[in-house]
């Protein structure tokens, strides 16, 4: 039976369309090989992998539906980004930002949207825009501080 975010129809549809879902049980007194392989020390631990099984994104702890969907999409975006597929990454970071504006994953998505834009176009203005957006919308976020060097880039 699916409980928590998994009982939500949007989550079910998104997972069915985009992922092969797998549940791996944790055993604390005798860690499983998968727990050791992925350094899992708390539950829930949610991992987004590419089609070869390589991890690209991780969430530890409960997340409600909107945050959950944003993390799944951020994971897909990071998977494209890590493979230098910057146009696909850009589309997916933008999806997180536009479809889940209040989700906790958004500041990270804005940061990497700027970087993906830079890699795709070699125009540094995308980095500056990422800083401006983070400074305006999420000034307390660590991602705003990470983007601070881009403040110097002229628009």
């Amino acid at each position, binding site marked *: 039976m699916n409980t928590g975010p998994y009982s939500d129809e949007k989550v079910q549809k998104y997972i069915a369309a985009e992922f092969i879902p*797998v549940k791996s049980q944790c055993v604390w007194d005798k860690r499983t090989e998968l727990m050791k392989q992925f350094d899992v020390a708390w539950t829930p631990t949610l991992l987004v992998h590419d089609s070869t099984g390589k991890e690209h994104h991780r969430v530890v702890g409960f997340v409600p539906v909107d945050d959950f969907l944003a993390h*799944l999409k951020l994971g897909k975006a990071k998977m494209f980004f890590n493979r230098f597929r910057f146009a696909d990454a850009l589309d997916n970071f933008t999806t997180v930002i536009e479809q889940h504006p209040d989700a906790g994953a958004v500041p990270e998505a804005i940061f990497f949207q700027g970087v993906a834009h830079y890699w795709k176009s070699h125009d540094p203005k995308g980095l500056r825009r990422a800083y401006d957006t983070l400074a305006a919308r999420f000034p307390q976020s660590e991602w705003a501080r990470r983007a601070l060097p881009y403040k110097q880039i002229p628009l």
Partner: protein
Amino acid sequence: MADIKWEKDFHKAVELAGKTNKSLFQDFWFDG
């Protein structure tokens, strides 16, 4: 409402992901 069809074997799931070119989502859970 369609239930999610969970795989229970990670390695089988990777095999399926490779065949279908889908990403893989893994939920580590604890039945406390």
